Protein backbone atom coordinates (compact mmCIF):
# COMPACT_ATOMS: atom_id res chain seq x y z
CA UNK A 1 0.00 0.00 0.00
CA UNK A 2 1.57 3.27 -1.00
CA UNK A 3 1.08 6.49 0.97
CA UNK A 4 -1.24 8.12 -1.57
CA UNK A 5 -3.59 5.15 -1.54
CA UNK A 6 -3.56 5.10 2.23
CA UNK A 7 -4.51 8.74 2.28
CA UNK A 8 -7.33 8.23 -0.17
CA UNK A 9 -8.87 5.20 1.55
CA UNK A 10 -9.29 6.98 4.85
CA UNK A 11 -10.48 10.28 3.50
CA UNK A 12 -13.14 9.21 1.02
CA UNK A 13 -13.67 11.99 -1.48
CA UNK A 14 -12.92 15.66 -1.75
CA UNK A 15 -14.96 16.62 1.33
CA UNK A 16 -13.53 13.80 3.41
CA UNK A 17 -15.29 11.00 5.19
CA UNK A 18 -19.09 11.59 5.23
CA UNK A 19 -19.55 9.88 8.62
CA UNK A 20 -16.94 12.16 10.15
CA UNK A 21 -18.74 15.16 8.69
CA UNK A 22 -22.10 13.97 10.07
CA UNK A 23 -20.53 13.51 13.51
CA UNK A 24 -19.09 17.00 13.36
CA UNK A 25 -22.45 18.53 12.38
CA UNK A 26 -24.10 16.73 15.32
CA UNK A 27 -21.42 18.04 17.67
CA UNK A 28 -21.96 21.55 16.35
CA UNK A 29 -25.68 21.23 17.12
CA UNK A 30 -24.85 20.13 20.66
CA UNK A 31 -22.49 23.06 21.15
CA UNK A 32 -25.42 25.38 20.56
CA UNK A 33 -26.72 24.32 23.97
CA UNK A 34 -23.57 25.17 25.94
CA UNK A 35 -24.55 28.71 27.05
CA UNK A 36 -27.93 27.43 28.28
CA UNK A 37 -26.34 25.16 30.83
CA UNK A 38 -22.87 26.49 31.43
CA UNK A 39 -21.92 30.09 31.30
CA UNK A 40 -18.68 31.52 32.47
CA UNK A 41 -15.60 29.34 32.18
CA UNK A 42 -17.02 26.42 30.15
CA UNK A 43 -18.62 28.82 27.69
CA UNK A 44 -15.30 30.58 27.28
CA UNK A 45 -13.50 27.30 26.62
CA UNK A 46 -15.95 26.31 23.93
CA UNK A 47 -15.96 29.78 22.41
CA UNK A 48 -12.20 29.43 22.04
CA UNK A 49 -12.64 26.03 20.42
CA UNK A 50 -15.05 27.55 17.91
CA UNK A 51 -12.68 30.42 17.27
CA UNK A 52 -9.75 28.10 16.59
CA UNK A 53 -12.00 25.95 14.39
CA UNK A 54 -12.86 28.94 12.20
CA UNK A 55 -9.16 29.84 11.90
CA UNK A 56 -8.31 26.23 11.12
CA UNK A 57 -10.92 26.18 8.36
CA UNK A 58 -9.38 29.32 6.92
CA UNK A 59 -5.95 27.71 6.92
CA UNK A 60 -7.27 24.42 5.55
CA UNK A 61 -8.46 26.06 2.33
CA UNK A 62 -5.02 27.32 1.33
CA UNK A 63 -2.81 24.88 3.25
CA UNK A 64 -4.93 21.73 3.08
CA UNK A 65 -6.90 21.94 -0.13
CA UNK A 66 -4.57 24.05 -2.27
CA UNK A 67 -1.35 22.72 -0.75
CA UNK A 68 0.22 26.11 -0.04
CA UNK A 69 1.40 26.05 3.56
CA UNK A 70 0.79 29.50 5.02
CA UNK A 71 2.29 30.78 8.26
CA UNK A 72 0.58 34.11 7.85
CA UNK A 73 -3.10 33.50 8.48
CA UNK A 74 -2.85 34.99 11.96
CA UNK A 75 -2.47 38.36 10.20
CA UNK A 76 -6.08 38.13 9.00
CA UNK A 77 -7.29 37.20 12.47
CA UNK A 78 -5.49 40.26 13.82
CA UNK A 79 -6.80 42.52 11.07
CA UNK A 80 -10.32 41.30 11.85
CA UNK A 81 -9.86 42.03 15.55
CA UNK A 82 -8.54 45.53 14.86
CA UNK A 83 -11.45 46.24 12.48
CA UNK A 84 -13.83 45.63 15.40
CA UNK A 85 -11.71 47.75 17.71
CA UNK A 86 -11.66 50.65 15.26
CA UNK A 87 -15.42 50.52 14.77
CA UNK A 88 -15.87 50.27 18.54
CA UNK A 89 -13.73 53.33 19.21
CA UNK A 90 -15.92 55.20 16.71
CA UNK A 91 -19.01 54.32 18.67
CA UNK A 92 -20.29 51.56 16.40
CA UNK A 93 -21.74 48.81 18.55
CA UNK A 94 -22.98 46.21 16.11
CA UNK A 95 -21.43 42.75 15.96
CA UNK A 96 -22.72 42.06 12.45
CA UNK A 97 -21.08 45.23 11.15
CA UNK A 98 -17.83 44.25 12.89
CA UNK A 99 -17.81 40.89 11.14
CA UNK A 100 -18.74 42.27 7.74
CA UNK A 101 -16.07 44.96 7.83
CA UNK A 102 -13.47 42.48 9.08
CA UNK A 103 -14.26 40.06 6.26
CA UNK A 104 -14.12 42.82 3.66
CA UNK A 105 -10.83 44.29 4.91
CA UNK A 106 -9.21 40.85 5.33
CA UNK A 107 -10.27 39.89 1.82
CA UNK A 108 -8.91 43.07 0.24
CA UNK A 109 -5.64 42.79 2.17
CA UNK A 110 -5.29 39.10 1.28
CA UNK A 111 -5.90 39.73 -2.41
CA UNK A 112 -3.35 42.59 -2.54
CA UNK A 113 -0.67 40.70 -0.62
CA UNK A 114 -1.54 37.50 -2.47
CA UNK A 115 -0.40 38.76 -5.85
CA UNK A 116 3.32 38.90 -5.04
CA UNK A 117 3.36 36.24 -2.29
CA UNK A 118 1.48 33.50 -4.14
CA UNK A 119 3.96 33.61 -7.01
CA UNK A 120 6.36 31.87 -4.63
CA UNK A 121 6.28 28.13 -4.18
CA UNK A 122 6.74 25.71 -1.30
CA UNK A 123 9.16 26.85 1.38
CA UNK A 124 9.47 30.31 -0.07
CA UNK A 125 5.74 30.86 0.08
CA UNK A 126 5.69 29.64 3.69
CA UNK A 127 8.41 32.05 4.74
CA UNK A 128 6.93 34.99 2.87
CA UNK A 129 3.58 34.51 4.61
CA UNK A 130 5.34 34.40 7.97
CA UNK A 131 6.98 37.65 6.95
CA UNK A 132 3.58 39.19 6.19
CA UNK A 133 2.23 38.17 9.60
CA UNK A 134 5.24 39.55 11.48
CA UNK A 135 5.30 42.75 9.45
CA UNK A 136 1.59 43.40 10.12
CA UNK A 137 2.20 42.78 13.83
CA UNK A 138 5.13 45.19 13.92
CA UNK A 139 3.31 47.87 11.98
CA UNK A 140 0.22 47.75 14.19
CA UNK A 141 2.40 47.78 17.30
CA UNK A 142 3.93 51.02 16.02
CA UNK A 143 0.74 52.82 15.06
CA UNK A 144 -0.35 55.10 17.89
CA UNK A 145 -3.76 55.41 16.27
CA UNK A 146 -4.30 51.71 16.96
CA UNK A 147 -3.05 51.91 20.51
CA UNK A 148 0.48 50.72 19.66
CA UNK A 149 1.77 48.08 22.04
CA UNK A 150 -0.64 49.40 24.69
CA UNK A 151 -3.64 48.00 22.85
CA UNK A 152 -7.28 49.06 22.69
CA UNK A 153 -10.22 48.42 24.97
CA UNK A 154 -13.62 47.62 23.53
CA UNK A 155 -17.04 48.25 24.95
CA UNK A 156 -18.78 44.98 25.85
CA UNK A 157 -22.46 44.10 26.20
CA UNK A 158 -23.72 43.64 29.76
CA UNK A 159 -23.31 40.30 31.45
CA UNK A 160 -26.88 39.13 30.87
CA UNK A 161 -26.32 39.20 27.13
CA UNK A 162 -22.73 38.03 27.13
CA UNK A 163 -23.55 34.75 25.37
CA UNK A 164 -24.15 36.73 22.19
CA UNK A 165 -20.40 36.50 21.59
CA UNK A 166 -20.59 32.74 21.94
CA UNK A 167 -23.41 32.44 19.45
CA UNK A 168 -21.64 34.79 17.05
CA UNK A 169 -18.50 32.66 17.21
CA UNK A 170 -20.63 29.56 16.70
CA UNK A 171 -22.06 31.10 13.55
CA UNK A 172 -18.61 32.05 12.28
CA UNK A 173 -17.37 28.49 12.84
CA UNK A 174 -20.45 26.97 11.25
CA UNK A 175 -20.19 29.32 8.28
CA UNK A 176 -16.53 28.41 7.82
CA UNK A 177 -17.34 24.70 8.02
CA UNK A 178 -20.29 24.78 5.62
CA UNK A 179 -18.44 27.21 3.36
CA UNK A 180 -15.58 24.71 3.17
CA UNK A 181 -18.02 21.87 2.47
CA UNK A 182 -19.75 23.61 -0.40
CA UNK A 183 -16.55 25.06 -1.84
CA UNK A 184 -14.85 21.66 -1.74
CA UNK A 185 -17.72 20.03 -3.62
CA UNK A 186 -17.90 22.80 -6.20
CA UNK A 187 -15.65 23.37 -9.20
CA UNK A 188 -13.57 25.61 -6.96
CA UNK A 189 -12.64 22.70 -4.69
CA UNK A 190 -11.44 20.65 -7.62
CA UNK A 191 -9.32 23.53 -8.89
CA UNK A 192 -7.69 23.82 -5.44
CA UNK A 193 -6.92 20.11 -5.25
CA UNK A 194 -5.64 19.99 -8.83
CA UNK A 195 -3.20 22.80 -7.98
CA UNK A 196 -2.10 20.94 -4.85
CA UNK A 197 -1.48 17.71 -6.73
CA UNK A 198 0.30 19.13 -9.77
CA UNK A 199 0.31 22.75 -10.83
CA UNK A 200 1.57 22.09 -14.38
CA UNK A 201 -1.01 19.42 -15.05
CA UNK A 202 -3.69 21.74 -13.63
CA UNK A 203 -2.63 24.52 -16.02
CA UNK A 204 -2.94 22.25 -19.04
CA UNK A 205 -6.51 21.49 -17.95
CA UNK A 206 -7.33 25.19 -18.04
CA UNK A 207 -6.82 26.09 -14.39
CA UNK A 208 -5.06 29.38 -13.72
CA UNK A 209 -3.03 28.52 -10.62
CA UNK A 210 -2.49 32.15 -9.67
CA UNK A 211 -6.19 33.00 -9.81
CA UNK A 212 -7.39 30.04 -7.76
CA UNK A 213 -4.59 30.27 -5.22
CA UNK A 214 -5.62 33.86 -4.55
CA UNK A 215 -9.26 32.79 -4.28
CA UNK A 216 -8.40 30.07 -1.72
CA UNK A 217 -6.17 32.41 0.26
CA UNK A 218 -8.75 35.23 0.23
CA UNK A 219 -11.69 33.09 1.33
CA UNK A 220 -9.50 31.61 4.08
CA UNK A 221 -8.57 35.15 5.14
CA UNK A 222 -12.25 36.06 5.46
CA UNK A 223 -12.83 33.14 7.84
CA UNK A 224 -9.91 34.15 10.06
CA UNK A 225 -10.95 37.81 9.87
CA UNK A 226 -14.49 37.00 10.98
CA UNK A 227 -13.16 35.01 13.95
CA UNK A 228 -10.95 37.94 14.92
CA UNK A 229 -13.88 40.37 14.64
CA UNK A 230 -15.86 38.42 17.23
CA UNK A 231 -12.84 37.72 19.42
CA UNK A 232 -12.03 41.42 19.99
CA UNK A 233 -15.30 42.51 21.68
CA UNK A 234 -15.68 39.13 23.40
CA UNK A 235 -12.24 39.58 24.96
CA UNK A 236 -12.91 43.25 25.66
CA UNK A 237 -9.32 44.24 24.99
CA UNK A 238 -6.77 43.60 22.26
CA UNK A 239 -3.12 44.36 21.79
CA UNK A 240 -0.56 43.07 19.29
CA UNK A 241 0.77 40.33 21.57
CA UNK A 242 -2.72 38.91 22.23
CA UNK A 243 -4.02 39.09 18.69
CA UNK A 244 -0.87 37.95 16.90
CA UNK A 245 0.20 35.33 19.44
CA UNK A 246 2.36 32.48 18.15
CA UNK A 247 -0.37 30.13 19.40
CA UNK A 248 -2.91 31.73 17.09
CA UNK A 249 -0.54 31.04 14.23
CA UNK A 250 0.56 27.49 14.93
CA UNK A 251 -2.55 26.11 16.68
CA UNK A 252 -4.89 26.25 13.68
CA UNK A 253 -2.25 24.53 11.54
CA UNK A 254 -1.64 21.85 14.16
CA UNK A 255 -5.40 21.35 14.59
CA UNK A 256 -5.98 20.90 10.88
CA UNK A 257 -3.18 18.38 10.53
CA UNK A 258 -4.24 16.44 13.64
CA UNK A 259 -7.87 16.39 12.59
CA UNK A 260 -7.31 15.63 8.93
CA UNK A 261 -5.81 17.99 6.40
CA UNK A 262 -7.86 18.70 3.28
CA UNK A 263 -11.11 17.43 4.80
CA UNK A 264 -14.24 19.22 6.03
CA UNK A 265 -14.43 17.46 9.40
CA UNK A 266 -10.71 17.64 10.20
CA UNK A 267 -10.26 21.24 11.36
CA UNK A 268 -13.20 21.07 13.78
CA UNK A 269 -12.17 17.70 15.23
CA UNK A 270 -8.61 18.97 15.61
CA UNK A 271 -9.77 22.19 17.29
CA UNK A 272 -12.03 20.34 19.69
CA UNK A 273 -9.30 17.91 20.64
CA UNK A 274 -6.35 20.25 20.85
CA UNK A 275 -7.98 23.31 22.41
CA UNK A 276 -10.02 21.04 24.71
CA UNK A 277 -6.99 19.04 25.82
CA UNK A 278 -5.01 22.24 26.31
CA UNK A 279 -7.68 23.62 28.66
CA UNK A 280 -7.99 20.37 30.62
CA UNK A 281 -4.24 19.99 31.02
CA UNK A 282 -3.95 23.60 32.15
CA UNK A 283 -6.53 22.95 34.83
CA UNK A 284 -4.97 19.80 36.20
CA UNK A 285 -1.26 20.33 35.66
CA UNK A 286 -0.38 23.87 36.47
CA UNK A 287 3.35 23.54 35.89
CA UNK A 288 3.66 20.72 33.41
CA UNK A 289 0.68 21.18 31.14
CA UNK A 290 2.64 22.07 28.02
CA UNK A 291 4.85 19.07 28.66
CA UNK A 292 1.83 16.76 28.47
CA UNK A 293 0.40 18.80 25.63
CA UNK A 294 3.63 18.45 23.64
CA UNK A 295 3.87 14.73 24.40
CA UNK A 296 0.26 14.30 23.30
CA UNK A 297 0.95 15.94 19.92
CA UNK A 298 4.04 13.77 19.43
CA UNK A 299 2.05 10.62 20.20
CA UNK A 300 -0.86 11.51 17.94
CA UNK A 301 1.48 12.23 15.04
CA UNK A 302 3.24 8.91 15.52
CA UNK A 303 0.05 6.89 16.00
CA UNK A 304 -2.17 8.69 13.49
CA UNK A 305 0.10 10.30 10.94
CA UNK A 306 -2.85 10.95 8.58
CA UNK A 307 -5.01 12.66 11.17
CA UNK A 308 -8.07 11.61 13.14
CA UNK A 309 -10.57 11.75 10.27
CA UNK A 310 -8.56 8.96 8.69
CA UNK A 311 -9.72 6.63 11.49
CA UNK A 312 -13.34 7.00 10.35
CA UNK A 313 -12.53 5.41 7.01
CA UNK A 314 -10.12 2.77 8.26
CA UNK A 315 -11.18 -0.76 7.38
CA UNK A 316 -9.57 -3.86 8.82
CA UNK A 317 -9.43 -2.86 12.48
CA UNK A 318 -6.35 -2.85 14.65
CA UNK A 319 -4.25 -4.89 12.25
CA UNK A 320 -4.74 -2.41 9.41
CA UNK A 321 -3.91 0.40 11.81
CA UNK A 322 -0.73 -1.29 13.04
CA UNK A 323 0.32 -1.90 9.46
CA UNK A 324 -0.21 1.76 8.66
CA UNK A 325 2.21 2.86 11.37
CA UNK A 326 5.34 1.97 9.47
CA UNK A 327 4.17 3.34 6.12
CA UNK A 328 6.21 6.51 6.52
CA UNK A 329 9.24 4.91 8.13
CA UNK A 330 12.55 5.61 6.42
Amino acid at each position, binding site marked *: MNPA*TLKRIGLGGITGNPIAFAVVLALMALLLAIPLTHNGYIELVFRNILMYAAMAYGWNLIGGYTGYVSFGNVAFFGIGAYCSAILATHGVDNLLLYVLLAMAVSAVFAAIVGFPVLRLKGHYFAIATLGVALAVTDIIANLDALGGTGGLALHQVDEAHFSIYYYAMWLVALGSMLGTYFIARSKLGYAFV*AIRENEDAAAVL*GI*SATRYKIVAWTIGAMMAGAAGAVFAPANGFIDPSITFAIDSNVFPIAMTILGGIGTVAGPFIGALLLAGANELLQRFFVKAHTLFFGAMIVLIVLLLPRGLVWLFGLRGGARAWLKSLSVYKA
Partner: protein
Amino acid sequence: MSEVALRISNVGMRFGGLWALSEVSFDVERGSVLGLIGPNGSGKTTLMNVISGVYKPTAGEVTYGGKRIADVATHDVCHLGIARTFQIVKPFASLSVRENVAVGAMYGRYGAKRSTRASFERAQELLEVVGLARVAERPASDLTIPDRKRLEVAKALALDPDVLLLDEVMAGLNATEVEEALDLLRSVNARGVTLIVVEHLMKAIVSISTSIVVLAEGRKIAQGAPADVLGSPQVIEAYLGSRWVKRQEQLAVIEAERIEAARLQPPEAGA
Protein backbone atom coordinates in the same frame (compact mmCIF):
# COMPACT_ATOMS: atom_id res chain seq x y z
CA MET B 1 -7.07 22.11 -50.29
CA SER B 2 -8.38 21.82 -46.79
CA GLU B 3 -8.07 24.38 -44.08
CA VAL B 4 -4.86 24.79 -42.06
CA ALA B 5 -5.52 24.27 -38.34
CA LEU B 6 -2.08 24.79 -36.87
CA ARG B 7 0.87 26.54 -38.46
CA ILE B 8 4.36 25.96 -37.13
CA SER B 9 6.72 28.48 -38.67
CA ASN B 10 10.47 28.56 -38.18
CA VAL B 11 10.22 27.41 -34.59
CA GLY B 12 13.48 27.33 -32.65
CA MET B 13 13.91 26.42 -29.00
CA ARG B 14 17.15 26.87 -27.13
CA PHE B 15 18.05 25.45 -23.71
CA GLY B 16 21.29 27.00 -22.55
CA GLY B 17 23.67 26.49 -25.46
CA LEU B 18 21.66 23.71 -27.06
CA TRP B 19 19.12 24.22 -29.81
CA ALA B 20 16.55 21.50 -29.10
CA LEU B 21 14.61 22.70 -32.14
CA SER B 22 15.67 24.84 -35.05
CA GLU B 23 13.81 26.20 -38.04
CA VAL B 24 10.98 23.72 -37.84
CA SER B 25 8.05 24.61 -40.12
CA PHE B 26 4.98 22.70 -41.17
CA ASP B 27 1.20 23.06 -41.36
CA VAL B 28 -1.33 20.74 -39.84
CA GLU B 29 -4.57 20.45 -41.78
CA ARG B 30 -7.85 20.48 -39.95
CA GLY B 31 -9.20 16.98 -39.48
CA SER B 32 -5.93 15.26 -40.36
CA VAL B 33 -3.72 12.95 -38.31
CA LEU B 34 -0.12 14.06 -38.26
CA GLY B 35 2.49 11.57 -37.14
CA LEU B 36 5.59 13.09 -35.55
CA ILE B 37 8.55 10.74 -35.44
CA GLY B 38 12.26 10.83 -34.86
CA PRO B 39 14.87 9.16 -32.70
CA ASN B 40 15.13 9.88 -28.95
CA GLY B 41 16.26 13.41 -28.29
CA SER B 42 15.17 14.63 -31.72
CA GLY B 43 12.92 17.30 -30.17
CA LYS B 44 9.47 15.72 -30.47
CA THR B 45 8.40 16.34 -26.89
CA THR B 46 9.94 19.82 -26.96
CA LEU B 47 7.84 20.61 -30.02
CA MET B 48 4.74 19.29 -28.26
CA ASN B 49 5.55 21.59 -25.35
CA VAL B 50 5.90 24.56 -27.68
CA ILE B 51 2.64 23.81 -29.47
CA SER B 52 0.74 23.36 -26.20
CA GLY B 53 2.14 26.60 -24.81
CA VAL B 54 4.17 25.04 -21.99
CA TYR B 55 7.35 26.49 -23.55
CA LYS B 56 7.60 29.84 -25.30
CA PRO B 57 9.72 29.29 -28.42
CA THR B 58 13.07 31.11 -28.65
CA ALA B 59 12.49 31.77 -32.35
CA GLY B 60 9.57 31.56 -34.76
CA GLU B 61 5.97 31.03 -33.80
CA VAL B 62 3.11 28.59 -33.63
CA THR B 63 -0.24 30.00 -34.72
CA TYR B 64 -3.64 28.50 -34.29
CA GLY B 65 -6.56 30.17 -36.06
CA GLY B 66 -4.31 33.19 -36.62
CA LYS B 67 -3.48 33.49 -32.91
CA ARG B 68 0.09 33.11 -31.63
CA ILE B 69 0.19 30.39 -28.98
CA ALA B 70 3.07 32.15 -27.23
CA ASP B 71 0.77 35.10 -26.48
CA VAL B 72 -1.67 32.87 -24.64
CA ALA B 73 -1.19 31.83 -21.01
CA THR B 74 -0.60 28.09 -20.57
CA HIS B 75 -3.92 27.67 -18.79
CA ASP B 76 -5.74 29.36 -21.68
CA VAL B 77 -4.32 27.23 -24.49
CA CYS B 78 -6.95 24.56 -23.89
CA HIS B 79 -9.64 27.23 -24.20
CA LEU B 80 -8.49 27.78 -27.81
CA GLY B 81 -9.25 24.13 -28.49
CA ILE B 82 -5.80 22.58 -28.12
CA ALA B 83 -5.31 19.72 -25.66
CA ARG B 84 -2.41 17.44 -24.94
CA THR B 85 -1.31 14.38 -23.02
CA PHE B 86 1.98 14.06 -21.18
CA GLN B 87 4.55 11.43 -21.99
CA ILE B 88 5.23 11.21 -18.28
CA VAL B 89 1.68 10.86 -17.01
CA LYS B 90 0.51 13.40 -14.45
CA PRO B 91 -2.63 12.20 -12.69
CA PHE B 92 -3.95 14.02 -9.61
CA ALA B 93 -2.98 11.20 -7.28
CA SER B 94 -5.46 11.73 -4.46
CA LEU B 95 -8.48 12.25 -6.73
CA SER B 96 -10.47 9.37 -8.18
CA VAL B 97 -10.15 8.49 -11.85
CA ARG B 98 -13.53 10.05 -12.60
CA GLU B 99 -12.66 13.21 -10.67
CA ASN B 100 -9.42 13.51 -12.62
CA VAL B 101 -11.35 13.60 -15.89
CA ALA B 102 -14.10 15.80 -14.46
CA VAL B 103 -11.53 18.51 -13.61
CA GLY B 104 -10.79 18.76 -17.33
CA ALA B 105 -14.48 18.95 -18.15
CA MET B 106 -14.96 21.71 -15.53
CA TYR B 107 -12.14 23.99 -16.60
CA GLY B 108 -11.62 23.08 -20.25
CA ARG B 109 -13.00 24.75 -23.33
CA TYR B 110 -16.69 24.43 -22.47
CA GLY B 111 -16.12 24.13 -18.74
CA ALA B 112 -17.60 27.53 -17.96
CA LYS B 113 -20.93 26.35 -19.35
CA ARG B 114 -20.93 23.06 -17.45
CA SER B 115 -22.24 22.48 -13.96
CA THR B 116 -20.28 20.26 -11.60
CA ARG B 117 -22.84 17.50 -12.15
CA ALA B 118 -22.66 17.82 -15.95
CA SER B 119 -18.87 17.65 -15.73
CA PHE B 120 -19.07 14.36 -13.86
CA GLU B 121 -21.52 13.00 -16.42
CA ARG B 122 -19.19 14.02 -19.23
CA ALA B 123 -16.29 12.40 -17.37
CA GLN B 124 -18.22 9.14 -17.06
CA GLU B 125 -18.96 9.14 -20.81
CA LEU B 126 -15.31 9.63 -21.59
CA LEU B 127 -14.23 6.89 -19.19
CA GLU B 128 -16.49 4.52 -21.07
CA VAL B 129 -14.98 5.68 -24.36
CA VAL B 130 -11.40 5.00 -23.22
CA GLY B 131 -12.30 1.86 -21.28
CA LEU B 132 -11.73 3.06 -17.73
CA ALA B 133 -15.31 2.96 -16.47
CA ARG B 134 -14.46 -0.15 -14.46
CA VAL B 135 -12.00 1.82 -12.28
CA ALA B 136 -13.87 5.16 -12.18
CA GLU B 137 -14.02 5.25 -8.38
CA ARG B 138 -10.43 4.19 -7.73
CA PRO B 139 -7.74 6.69 -6.78
CA ALA B 140 -5.68 7.62 -9.82
CA SER B 141 -2.51 6.61 -7.98
CA ASP B 142 -3.69 2.98 -8.06
CA LEU B 143 -3.76 2.73 -11.85
CA THR B 144 -1.40 0.55 -13.85
CA ILE B 145 0.74 2.17 -16.53
CA PRO B 146 -1.59 1.32 -19.46
CA ASP B 147 -4.55 2.67 -17.49
CA ARG B 148 -2.65 5.82 -16.67
CA LYS B 149 -2.12 6.36 -20.38
CA ARG B 150 -5.86 5.91 -20.95
CA LEU B 151 -6.55 8.39 -18.17
CA GLU B 152 -4.26 10.94 -19.86
CA VAL B 153 -6.27 10.60 -23.07
CA ALA B 154 -9.58 10.90 -21.22
CA LYS B 155 -8.40 14.03 -19.41
CA ALA B 156 -7.35 15.61 -22.70
CA LEU B 157 -10.64 14.68 -24.37
CA ALA B 158 -12.52 16.24 -21.48
CA LEU B 159 -11.20 19.60 -22.67
CA ASP B 160 -13.32 19.23 -25.86
CA PRO B 161 -10.35 19.93 -28.13
CA ASP B 162 -10.25 20.59 -31.86
CA VAL B 163 -6.58 19.64 -31.88
CA LEU B 164 -5.28 16.84 -29.68
CA LEU B 165 -1.56 16.29 -29.08
CA LEU B 166 -0.76 12.74 -28.02
CA ASP B 167 2.71 12.16 -26.60
CA GLU B 168 3.53 8.44 -26.63
CA VAL B 169 0.16 7.27 -25.38
CA MET B 170 0.82 3.79 -26.77
CA ALA B 171 4.18 3.22 -25.13
CA GLY B 172 3.81 0.34 -22.72
CA LEU B 173 0.70 -1.14 -24.31
CA ASN B 174 0.61 -4.70 -25.65
CA ALA B 175 -0.47 -5.54 -29.23
CA THR B 176 -4.18 -5.87 -28.45
CA GLU B 177 -4.15 -2.68 -26.44
CA VAL B 178 -2.41 -0.82 -29.24
CA GLU B 179 -5.17 -1.90 -31.61
CA GLU B 180 -7.79 -0.69 -29.13
CA ALA B 181 -5.95 2.60 -28.75
CA LEU B 182 -5.78 3.05 -32.53
CA ASP B 183 -9.51 2.39 -32.83
CA LEU B 184 -10.12 4.98 -30.14
CA LEU B 185 -7.96 7.57 -31.90
CA ARG B 186 -9.65 6.86 -35.23
CA SER B 187 -13.07 7.39 -33.71
CA VAL B 188 -11.90 10.63 -32.07
CA ASN B 189 -10.51 11.77 -35.43
CA ALA B 190 -13.73 10.77 -37.17
CA ARG B 191 -15.53 13.32 -34.99
CA GLY B 192 -13.40 16.02 -36.57
CA VAL B 193 -10.60 16.30 -34.01
CA THR B 194 -7.19 16.96 -35.54
CA LEU B 195 -4.53 14.67 -34.06
CA ILE B 196 -0.80 15.12 -33.69
CA VAL B 197 0.68 11.82 -32.63
CA VAL B 198 4.16 11.24 -31.27
CA GLU B 199 4.95 7.56 -31.12
CA HIS B 200 7.84 5.14 -31.41
CA LEU B 201 5.73 2.28 -32.75
CA MET B 202 6.16 2.66 -36.51
CA LYS B 203 3.32 0.31 -37.37
CA ALA B 204 0.89 2.31 -35.30
CA ILE B 205 2.02 5.62 -36.74
CA VAL B 206 1.85 4.41 -40.32
CA SER B 207 -1.60 2.91 -39.89
CA ILE B 208 -3.18 6.05 -38.42
CA SER B 209 -1.38 9.05 -39.89
CA THR B 210 -2.46 10.96 -42.96
CA SER B 211 0.97 12.56 -43.08
CA ILE B 212 4.24 12.26 -41.22
CA VAL B 213 6.91 14.74 -40.13
CA VAL B 214 10.34 13.36 -39.30
CA LEU B 215 12.56 15.21 -36.82
CA ALA B 216 16.24 14.55 -36.21
CA GLU B 217 18.45 16.60 -33.93
CA GLY B 218 15.85 19.32 -33.72
CA ARG B 219 15.36 19.77 -37.47
CA LYS B 220 12.64 18.64 -39.80
CA ILE B 221 14.22 16.24 -42.24
CA ALA B 222 11.22 14.86 -44.09
CA GLN B 223 7.50 15.34 -44.49
CA GLY B 224 4.83 13.62 -46.54
CA ALA B 225 2.46 10.69 -46.78
CA PRO B 226 3.50 7.77 -44.53
CA ALA B 227 4.38 5.44 -47.37
CA ASP B 228 6.44 8.11 -49.16
CA VAL B 229 8.34 9.18 -46.06
CA LEU B 230 9.11 5.77 -44.64
CA GLY B 231 9.51 4.03 -47.98
CA SER B 232 12.04 6.59 -49.05
CA PRO B 233 15.42 4.88 -48.81
CA GLN B 234 16.83 8.34 -48.32
CA VAL B 235 15.01 8.79 -45.00
CA ILE B 236 15.83 5.34 -43.74
CA GLU B 237 19.45 5.31 -44.75
CA ALA B 238 20.47 8.90 -44.40
CA TYR B 239 18.44 9.93 -41.37
CA LEU B 240 17.33 6.94 -39.42
CA GLY B 241 19.92 4.45 -40.60
CA SER B 242 19.12 0.82 -41.24
CA ARG B 243 20.77 -0.09 -37.98
CA TRP B 244 18.49 2.36 -36.20
CA VAL B 245 15.39 0.68 -37.62
CA LYS B 246 16.68 -2.72 -36.62
CA ARG B 247 17.62 -1.49 -33.19
CA GLN B 248 14.20 0.05 -32.68
CA GLU B 249 12.64 -3.31 -33.41
CA GLN B 250 14.91 -5.03 -30.90
CA LEU B 251 14.24 -2.33 -28.34
CA ALA B 252 10.50 -2.68 -28.85
CA VAL B 253 10.72 -6.38 -28.03
CA ILE B 254 12.77 -5.76 -24.90
CA GLU B 255 10.49 -2.92 -23.86
CA ALA B 256 7.40 -5.06 -24.39
CA GLU B 257 8.80 -7.82 -22.19
CA ARG B 258 9.82 -5.40 -19.50
CA ILE B 259 6.43 -3.76 -19.54
CA GLU B 260 4.53 -7.02 -19.42
CA ALA B 261 6.47 -7.81 -16.27
CA ALA B 262 5.84 -4.45 -14.65
CA ARG B 263 2.42 -3.46 -15.89
CA LEU B 264 0.37 -5.39 -13.36
CA GLN B 265 2.02 -3.49 -10.52
CA PRO B 266 1.04 0.13 -10.07
CA PRO B 267 4.12 2.33 -9.77
CA GLU B 268 5.02 3.92 -6.46
CA ALA B 269 2.93 7.03 -5.94
CA GLY B 270 4.61 10.37 -5.91
CA ALA B 271 7.37 9.09 -8.16
